[in-house]
């Protein structure tokens, strides 16, 4: 059995066709796309071709609405800081409690500079409280920035509706589309989303390249200045091989999009149902919400996520965890805490994220391997007795000081 890779929300395998498209731009076509001579010409043409491909995947009205960046983190920083600079009189930002750190940390920085940050909460299923979102919208808000799909749970937010509400209040809307693009249809021309960030390596492209969609007519201020590249909106020589790779990956993602719902979601559901029916005391995070078709996040109560990952890794299965111990932090993921997941479950969450390379036999292998691993760790746990959690009231129950 080859290693089973189920950590595709972290990064994906590069598609061989993407690699093939990139190679000439790492060898013979080394010219700078900004050069006027013949060496620069193939690079310049490839750059614009990639822009078309990404614009097509995003359903943008104009290719020129795509700005290539080094990653989605840069795209998100650009969007938020651009809005703050473009509307200096507006000193409020709306975001959510479950955003990626790329958004949260930029907001925290603005908060230290005196901005008011509205963080829309979620319920136990990861659904946003739209009432609080609506109430926060006002003419003091420079930007509302909301992720399309959550990276940990796959829960899809109603960003189309949220963008409309933002516009009704005269507020600019940015969307972190990293976990949505390539997995669900994204047709930006049909929405009121003003800006959207995405990343090449989340849909079988290379790492080190991302894009920011900026709707034509949106007031914009560049983050990186110093050159005329990307129409003056992102200075710095373009990562041509990476951009070509992202373009090729975008085209392939567009072609494979129907596969996501037809096959990958079926495999994901098979994995989810098998695990939850075979293993007691398991919870699906955000299980009642619309989710990206490739993601399932399951909490295994009374055991800790890193220990599960180590056992999975030992069986050559790669997944990830929102457990504190995998992150260097000491608390479970901010998403789990925001959802109010009890500690009995929050420390033991495992995210399985599939891709178009995931095969049925791999899912069967995980379904076969996982139950004994969970049983083994529960047998070690002081909170577990036989086949059920130990209650504090049980005689001799585990009751540490401050427990």
């Amino acid at each position, binding site marked *: 059995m080859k290693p089973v890779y189920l950590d595709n929300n972290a990064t994906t395998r590069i598609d061989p066709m993407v690699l093939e498209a990139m190679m000439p731009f790492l060898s013979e076509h080394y010219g700078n796309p900004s050069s006027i001579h013949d060496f620069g010409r193939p690079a310049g043409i490839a750059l614009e071709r990639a822009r078309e491909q990404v614009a097509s995947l995003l359903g943008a009205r104009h290719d020129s609405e795509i700005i290539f960046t080094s990653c989605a983190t840069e795209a998100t920083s650009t969007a938020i800081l651009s809005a703050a600079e473009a509307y200096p009189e507006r000193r409020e930002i709306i975001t959510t409690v479950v955003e990626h750190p790329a958004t949260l940390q930029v907001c925290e920085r603005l908060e230290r500079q005196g901005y008011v940050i509205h963080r829309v909460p979620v319920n136990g299923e990861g659904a946003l409280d739209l009432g609080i979102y609506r109430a926060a919208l006002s003419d003091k808000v420079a930007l509302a920035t909301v992720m399309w799909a959550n990276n940990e749970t796959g829960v899809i937010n109603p960003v189309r509706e949220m963008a409309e509400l933002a516009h009704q209040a005269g507020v600019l809307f940015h969307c972190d589309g990293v976990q949505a693009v390539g997995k669900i249809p994204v047709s930006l021309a049909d929405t009121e989303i003003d800006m959207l960030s995405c990343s090449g390596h989340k849909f079988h492209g290379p790492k080190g390249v991302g894009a920011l969609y900026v709707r034509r007519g949106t007031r914009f201020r560049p983050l990186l200045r110093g050159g005329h590249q990307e129409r003056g909106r992102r200075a710095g020589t373009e990562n041509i091989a990476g951009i070509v790779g992202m373009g090729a990956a975008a085209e392939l993602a567009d072609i494979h999009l129907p596969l996501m719902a037809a096959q990958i979601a079926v495999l994901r559901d098979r994995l989810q149902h098998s695990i939850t029916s075979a293993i007691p005391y398991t919870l699906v995070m955000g299980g009642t919400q619309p989710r990206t078709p490739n993601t399932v996040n399951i909490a295994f109560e*009374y*055991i*800790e*996520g*890193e*220990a599960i*990952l*180590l056992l999975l*890794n*030992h069986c050559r299965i790669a997944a990830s965890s929102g*457990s*504190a*111990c*995998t992150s*260097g*932090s*000491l*608390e*479970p993921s901010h998403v789990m805490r925001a959802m109010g997941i009890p*500690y*009995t479950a929050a*420390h033991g969450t495992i995210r399985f994220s599939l891709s178009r390379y995931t095969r049925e036999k791999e899912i069967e292998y995980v379904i076969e391997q996982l139950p004994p691993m969970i049983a083994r760790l529960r*047998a*070690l*746990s*002081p*909170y577990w007795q036989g086949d059920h959690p130990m209650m504090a009231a049980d005689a001799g129950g*585990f*009751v*540490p*000081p*401050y*427990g």
Partner: protein
Amino acid sequence: MWNYSEKVKDHFFHPRNAKVVEQANAIGDVGSISCGDALRLMLRVDPATEIIEEAGFQTFGCGSAIASSSALTELIIGRTLTEASQLTNKQIADYLDGLPPEKMHCSVMGQEALRAAIAQFRGEAPEADHEEGALICKCFGVDEGHIRRAVLQNNLTTLEDVINYTKAGGGCTSCHEKIEQTLGEILSQQPVVAKAAEKPRDENWLAVEEVIAGLRPHIQADGGDMRLLDVTEKQVTVSLSGSCSGCMMTDMTLAWLQQKLIERLGRFMHVVSDTATTSTSAV
């Protein structure tokens, strides 16, 4: 994934003494499910000789927590309670060929469970520790006595060290100020610090001190600080605190000082921070 030693992996995949000791007469419970780490240590102690005849554990936690629990039991079986009580968390970590700095609290948890078990055997109240000091970290239930022991036994000097070794301050962060204050008090009582201060301050030392004095206002403006610890012929050791502690820009701050020293002294001096030294040796 953490870079665990082969021995940590071995004790995680094949834990020794992972069992309930049926006739245990000394039990130490530490940690909690909210902390993400909990350990029940069970000992069967011969009341006449006080020799630990059998030890077992149940652990809720990560790989290093399970490995540390397993190592702990291996280290104490056959010892008297008095001998076992001398065991330090560092010995647990050393037995495992080291733990990542961020995971040192797992070894401390083992040591604390052993203390709790011995206290229970001797009929001492488990709360006795708290008489030594106040509860510092409410998120993880860490008191002053726990921090004091970890600081003294492991020569901790920064907030980051205390978080790595005790978990205190790793949650809501509201106790960071209290931890720094406690740490300052513990360190100020240490003869080691006085010894460092007594080191002869030659021309070289004074020149380095002058350069650092020039940089400190800029560092302090960003919420951090830098303290000179030692100067040898080729190396300068500093301690970073406040927002510099654990900052991703630490290397740049040290390189900045290095550059300023080259300009001032006309020769290269290698600059290291005490935390960087600790991390390297611990890994």
